């Protein structure tokens, strides 16, 4: 168990491409941190830099008190679970789990003990002698985790470990990873592009965009209080509704659409209004009108998609918005719904910088 500290960490490739542009982060001992962001944002690169699989172009990474910039991956005391599991295909499950310990010259009896314990914990003790190609995806995932656990590292690194699993298994393994991490209380960094995974797993979440940390904090903090347009649009499912607007001193306008209840915003600046699908509701005197295009019934709730009347997006096309309602809310197609929202639950961002104003 140790903390992990990143100080102004940078990664520049020889061709000049900047993958990581100065990341500062303090990860407390035992914390589960999730790096989330779109593909190509640098989240995996950052993780691999902590693992030692990518060099560090600038800044410092420490585990505990120890600076590990130039320490080889095997001596960093980290274990990693890969997206495609990276099990050694020719070794049995036992062989896979014990390989790292053998390389550390651990006595055989001790290795067997540790492997058996970890296998029991992950419920893979029945397949210890099987080859990876005889296992299902979920079982392989467990073996990959077992290989990480037996080493008793001070930091666990997960690189999109669940993206090769089917939806049901993904949820199940997600819960197990969380439980396991709680039980072992090992500092963990988990990379994913799936915001549901990020929200549910993380103690704290780091939203990464173009090699920088946009915002870091508890999942609900990021959901209710995003600092930038990017964070607001990335966190939350279904995604937040974004409506391009301008402010004229009294109302937010998009063409004929006028929304009151906002003050203190800069005029003559392109702004973006963000409203979460779940803070809008049917209200005869509401400020929005929506023409229903699609109704998705999810069982406990209903997602209603439609075009916002009297407003257009940046390309001048119809503006699609989403509304989250309860399971009884079943409008007809092309029905016009009158929607209201509380202006204090909406966000307003500057369009150019993405900075949040309200």
């Amino acid at each position, binding site marked *: 168990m140790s903390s992990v500290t990143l100080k102004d960490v940078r990664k520049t490739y020889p061709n000049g491409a900047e993958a990581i542009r100065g990341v500062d982060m303090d990860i407390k001992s035992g914390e589960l941190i999730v790096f989330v962001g779109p593909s190509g944002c640098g989240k995996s690169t950052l993780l691999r830099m902590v693992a*030692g699989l990518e060099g560090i172009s600038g800044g410092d990474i420490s585990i505990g008190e120890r600076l590990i910039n130039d320490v080889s991956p095997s001596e960093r005391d980290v274990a*990693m679970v890969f997206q495609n599991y*990276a099990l050694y295909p020719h070794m049995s499950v036992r062989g896979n789990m014990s390989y790292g310990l053998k390389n550390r010259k651990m006595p055989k009896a001790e290795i067997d003990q540790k492997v058996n314990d970890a296998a029991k914990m992950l419920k893979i003790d029945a397949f210890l002698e099987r080859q990876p190609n005889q296992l299902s995806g979920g079982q392989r995932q467990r073996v990959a985790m077992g290989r990480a656990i037996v080493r008793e590292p001070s930091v666990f690194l997960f690189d999109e470990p669940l993206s090769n699993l089917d939806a049901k298994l993904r949820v199940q393994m997600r819960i197990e990873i969380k439980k396991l991490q709680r039980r072992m209380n090992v500092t963990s960094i988990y990379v994913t592009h799936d915001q549901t995974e990020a929200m549910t797993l993380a103690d704290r979440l780091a939203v990464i965009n173009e090699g920088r940390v946009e915002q870091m904090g508890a999942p609900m903090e990021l959901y209710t209080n995003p600092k930038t347009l990017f964070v607001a649009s990335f966190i939350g499912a279904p995604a937040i509704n974004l409506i391009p607007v301008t402010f004229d001193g009294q109302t937010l306008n998009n063409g004929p659409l006028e929304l009151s209840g906002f003050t203190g915003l800069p005029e003559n600046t392109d702004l973006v209004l963000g409203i979460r699908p779940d803070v809008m509701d049917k209200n005869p005197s509401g400020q929005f009108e929506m023409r229903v295009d699609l109704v998705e019934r999810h069982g406990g709730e209903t997602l209603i998609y439609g075009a916002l009347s009297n407003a257009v997006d940046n390309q001048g096309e119809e503006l699609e918005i989403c509304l989250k309602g309860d399971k009884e809310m079943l409008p007809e197609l092309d029905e016009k719904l009158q929607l209201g929202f509380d202006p204090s639950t909406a966000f307003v961002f500057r369009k150019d910088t993405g900075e949040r104003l309200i």
Partner: protein
Amino acid sequence: MERTRISTHIILICGAMFMTLPVWIAFATSTHAPETILREGLQFWPGGNFLKTYKEVLFVEGGVMKKVTAITMLKNSLILGIGFAVGKVIVSMLAAYAIVYFRFRFAVPLFWVIFMTLLLPLEVRIIPSYKVVADLGLLDTQAGLIIPLIASATGTFFFRQFFRSVPDELLEAARLDGATAWGFFKDILVPLSKTMIAAILIIMFVVGWNQYLWPLIMTTKEENYTLVIGIKQIYQVLSEGGEIPQFQKAFAMTILATLPPVLVVLIFQNWFVKGLVESEK
């Protein structure tokens, strides 16, 4: 449908006969007495001299100097074939490992230089090679026969392609598991390449077994002859000696020379095919 099946089979049978008939005729002829062959030419049906011919070839010293039996030559050929194949696999695997996994200056140009030597057959460099081996005092030794041949561009190329298809995550997982460069090679790459190794061993064994020019130049003593040279030697006796031509022995030797490669391919064919078509992941 029925028609195509029949014609397919006819074509297949013709092809098979075309390939096997010469071997059969060689075998049948080898079981006749030399007088019969001289009188009547090649024989299609086996004769009664099977045991006599093969016993003589295998156990009675023949050749120009009457010093060497087929058994000795078989042994020499085996040593050459196996040494050649094993040596090539080891050298080309190590070379491919260096090229694929280590970043060093000129790795790519070096690879292409190696690859281009494919264009140069042994015959082109046979005189310099002979000079080098002679200067090292290795003429007429097994080492001199094998070592100059074990660098293999083909093998290096095959292993390079195979190693490149091994997912990078395996290397990364091994690095996190504390494997050294040698450990990764021996614990992960070699076991993964099993089928590839088998395929290359088989191909190279056959190539080594069939080497003719190089052993012919390298060996001067009869007891170092390989089977392939032995066959040639018998024909040489035919044209020079005053004895009755021993065609049956030449054919017997040919059959003996064909057997080991055939056996090797038969026994290992599953691995062979696997190694060529499947990249085991």
